[in-house]
């Protein structure tokens, strides 16, 4: 089944300038419209919301938690890089979000940040070593999640006699999305990814066996027939998931839900 995701906004929207004589009581927008987009995706039956890492925007984990709390069905993927926290801590924070939301959090790991962005976030590692660190990060995160006691002594991270307490609330490990076309990136995906994200010009044949192929797709022009046609064509070529860019407004999310989705799926009759 083709899965359709929207990308959540990470910056507060600009707002219209009202004429002077119109009474204006609008609160200052200090937050992106991520919650409205998430609720639109939820109401519209889309499969998920991706909250991207935007150096100029709000934090994806904070935004993702709000979207998860507002919804019951959609997957919410938060993008972050492996230097934000120890893998134990990233896993612990995520385990709580899983317990809170029926296991709907996903991880989109950003491994190869632009060098200046990385350094501004305290990360001075570069080159293929970043993939080795990401491997350790995911190995430890999965390890403490699933085993107790768990010990791992890595080059970048370590844990001794770790492991999370059991939980009667279902707490699956987040679905892992990775990307990249280098040999290191593809090897990392083969080992750890549930899905590998590619761009429109990348060869889907790069995606390792056993890993779902996911595609970033632009839909700048609101032509539902063309978009549905492209999705159908790409799905036949083996793409399982689609992330529609750029970041959605609530309007785009409803458009995807009500204009594009029906072209892809046979609607069940007699709803309601």
């Amino acid at each position, binding site marked *: 089944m083709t899965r359709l995701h929207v990308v959540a906004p990470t910056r507060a929207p600009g707002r219209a300038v009202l004429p002077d004589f119109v009474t204006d009581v609008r609160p200052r927008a200090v937050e992106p419209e991520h919650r409205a987009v998430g609720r639109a995706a939820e109401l519209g039956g889309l499969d998920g919301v991706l909250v991207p890492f935007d150096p100029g925007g709000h934090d994806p984990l904070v935004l993702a938690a709000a979207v998860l*709390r507002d919804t019951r069905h959609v997957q919410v993927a938060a993008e972050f890089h492996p230097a934000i*926290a*120890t893998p134990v801590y990233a896993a612990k924070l995520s385990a709580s979000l899983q*317990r809170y939301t029926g296991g709907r959090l996903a991880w989109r790991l950003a491994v190869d940040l632009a060098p200046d962005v990385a350094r501004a*976030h305290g990360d001075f590692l570069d080159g293929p070593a970043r993939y080795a660190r990401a491997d350790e990060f995911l190995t430890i995160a999965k390890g403490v999640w699933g085993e107790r006691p768990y010990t791992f002594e890595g080059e970048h991270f370590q844990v*001794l006699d770790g492991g999370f307490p059991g939980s009667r609330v279902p707490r699956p490990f987040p679905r892992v999305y990775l990307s990249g076309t280098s040999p290191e990136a593809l090897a990392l995906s083969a080992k750890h990814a549930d899905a590998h994200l590619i761009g429109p010009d990348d060869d889907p044949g790069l995606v390792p066996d056993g890993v779902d192929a996911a595609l970033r797709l632009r839909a700048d022009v609101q032509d539902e027939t063309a978009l549905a046609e492209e999705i159908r064509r790409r799905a036949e070529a083996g793409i399982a998931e689609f992330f529609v860019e750029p970041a959605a407004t609530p309007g785009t999310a409803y458009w995807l839900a009500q204009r594009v989705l029906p072209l892809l799926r046979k609607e069940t009759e007699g709803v309601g």
Partner: protein
Amino acid sequence: MSVDIYWRIAMEGDAPALRLGDITRGGFGPYLPGALGPGLRGGAPDGYGPVDYMGEVARATERSGFVGGLMPSFPETDDPWAAAAALAGETTAYRFMIAFQPGFLHPVQAARMSASLQAATGGRVVYNIISGGGGPQQLWWGDKVAHDDRYARTSEFLDVLKGVWDGPFDHEGRFYRVESAALPPELRGQPFPEIFFSGSSPAAIAAAGRHADYYLSWLEPFDALAAKFALVREHSDTPPKFAVRVDVLARETEEEAWEEVRAGWARLGDAQRTPDASESVGWQRGRAFTAGAGDDFRDLEVQPNVWGGFNRLRPGPLFGLVGDYHQVAARLDELIDLGVDAFILAGVPHLEEAQRVGRHVLPLLKGKIA
């Protein structure tokens, strides 16, 4: 001067009564009859979870006269950042006091998450900075930095966090390095979270003198607490304010309050009456105050209404107040007189006890006598 009174939120799950102990609201344990968050409906999990009950506690806390809640962080709890981010939209005045250890998060990430939460809550984030008890728990978290070094790291962490908050910021230190680090324009200019700083060791007290808005201590016998505050004042150019974390078991009569303790004590086995040791200096201090106490639960009452056995009845610190509403209020007044500017109170179950303390104890407070 006003006193900020917080109420703890149970990140490890909550029991329906202190005397019962079984965690049946949220939490991690197996399903027990009557459990909720999640509960069963028609034999199947009802789809709710720990955060649904926590949201109820936050709302009850906010309505009962408290300024917000401490969200503690231990291996056996849920995570405070996750909880605060999930519940940010569900209260209007409640301040989220997020407990965290600087070693686990990068300071730039802490700055970004905090500023995003400030935007989501209108500036209601408060920090409880812990530098760790040491020993097995630190290794559990994947942290190998030694005890005294952790306070040096905490200091550097807060320097970087504040630098980024007011960025752009360059830094090359012992633990952290950043280049042109800054918050995005739309996250700049928000209030920096107040810092409640915990730690009883000399290294902690030295670091608190530099960074704390509030020096936060567990409750101890009052003279020991006064001495600790004096030590912090001595080590600070500008002394911080003082906060105490106090469990309260207040009832209409003293007998009712102690009966709750007695019933809780009666359910414990011998092993549970002797809790595990910790490297935490605060923990060791607490143990020392009750060393040599007899087997009866009342032997742990080290001064009137100050009882040192709470750790046996629920996870957490040793000391709390037990008594009737007036006694508990009088002890809190004594603490205010001793220099306490903020409280973090707690009771089990956190929801009903927040309402009880808000209705029956807080109105009796008289404040500073001077």
